[in-house]
């Protein structure tokens, strides 16, 4: 599969800037979901010349599958180096699939404070939503079978790769 991630990011940043202007949101701040979401957030943050630091969420403690699979091994802790209260957040993830990651991310954000708004930006939206969650800005939409998975590789030379899941 040949998808030009950089081209997607260019289109997304234009769309995002228009979205922010249309809603007249001031002082926005980017929050990426580890790991791919953080890479995308940083790219968009740079393109939009956003002056605030980029927040990072490790949603391991908010997942809904702890009682099934135990503690998810991840490395980085969450870092939101700003006050979430009354801020307009741009929440960024790489792949929107079931919607559970975004649900967990929002729950975690609300434990830091009450944002004025959250705008969801994703690089790839694939079918298979299991929760009523929708992205505001989408890089590309892919129609994949349940056994197919798409993954973002990076952080240098960002690229998307399709793979079959092991059954």
């Amino acid at each position: 599969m040949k998808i030009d991630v950089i081209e997607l990011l260019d289109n997304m940043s234009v769309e995002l800037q228009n979205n922010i202007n249309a809603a007249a949101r001031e002082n926005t701040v980017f929050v990426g979901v580890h790991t791919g979401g953080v890479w995308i957030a940083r790219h968009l943050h740079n393109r939009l010349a956003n002056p605030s630091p980029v927040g990072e969420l490790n949603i391991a403690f908010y997942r809904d599958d702890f009682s099934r699979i135990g503690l998810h091994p991840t490395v980085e802790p969450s870092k939101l180096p700003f006050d979430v209260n009354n801020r307009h957040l741009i929440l960024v993830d790489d792949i929107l699939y079931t919607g559970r990651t975004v649900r967990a991310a929002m729950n975690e954000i609300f434990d830091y404070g009450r944002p004025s708004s959250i705008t969801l930006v994703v690089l790839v939206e694939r079918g298979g939503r299991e929760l009523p969650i929708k992205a505001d800005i989408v890089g590309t939409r892919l129609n994949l079978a349940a056994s197919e998975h798409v993954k973002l590789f990076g952080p240098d030379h960002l690229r998307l790769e399709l793979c079959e899941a092991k059954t």
Partner: protein
Amino acid sequence: MNQQLDEQNRLKHFLTVEGLSRTLLTEVLDTAERFSPVGERAVKNVPLLRGKTVVNLFFEPSTRTRTTFELAAKRLSADIINLNIAASATSKGESLTDTLRTLEAMQCDMFVVRHQNSGAAAFIANQVAPHISVINAGDGRYQHPTQAMLDMFTIRRVKRHFDGLVVAIVGDITHSRVARSEIQALSTLGVAEVRVVGPKTLIPNRIEALGAQVFTDIETGIAGADVVIMLRLQQERMNSPLLPSAQEYFQSYGLTEQRLKLADKDAIVMHPGPINRGIEIDSAVADGPQSVILHQVVHGIAVRMAVMSLVIGVHAAGTN
């Protein structure tokens, strides 16, 4: 097979540092790092253990250990019960096994146990139903594994890594479960040298077998040390035949500012608490710039959150 590990070598209880690999100990430390920021947020809670019931089963008195376990459980959104043993049916003669059965019947998921007998935590882990996790909060003179881990976490935070470190543990080693756990943890994590320092009457025979070098002179013992861990001199020892007196102990083994200068200039001073000011440690040192004693207390919360999540997570995964 180590009783506290499952078939995939994951922690299902946390009873002792002994027999645990460097990888596993490092995993505990790394997990604690991820829990560390939680205490600084507006909502100091993550939902990981929501709906779980943790019982603090303390047969010996405790302030900091019990409170930090309680805080750790609450920060994981668990329900916590503090069993006050003195006021419980134990004083009416109820056996330990009956107490456990009663608590199991109330659908508790985890026991945090402190007991005066060495091996008590392992004994309890053998008795409880398979879905229940046991964490050792100190048993007799044997182990205090979470204290060792929070001390390792503190050392790693300041010193960044364990290689090349010289660590001196000073005090009543014989009666210290903290010392035992720490000597093993330090060795496993690969420090350069572990020293035990104290009067000969308070250092067990053949402690070298655990990987520690013995010093009976504090000045040579802490010379050049990167980390100095002071142990509390217990009341019972002060007037026993093992020591002349508390005052003489301070003269010979107390950590004063003068003595601290013999350690590395960037040495940190640690103490599991509670401290006896003027007996094992001078107030000026305990409250001084090289002391990380209060940091240890805060780190205890993140480390205990990590241990509790890891063992409950394994039980969760195992039931499916």
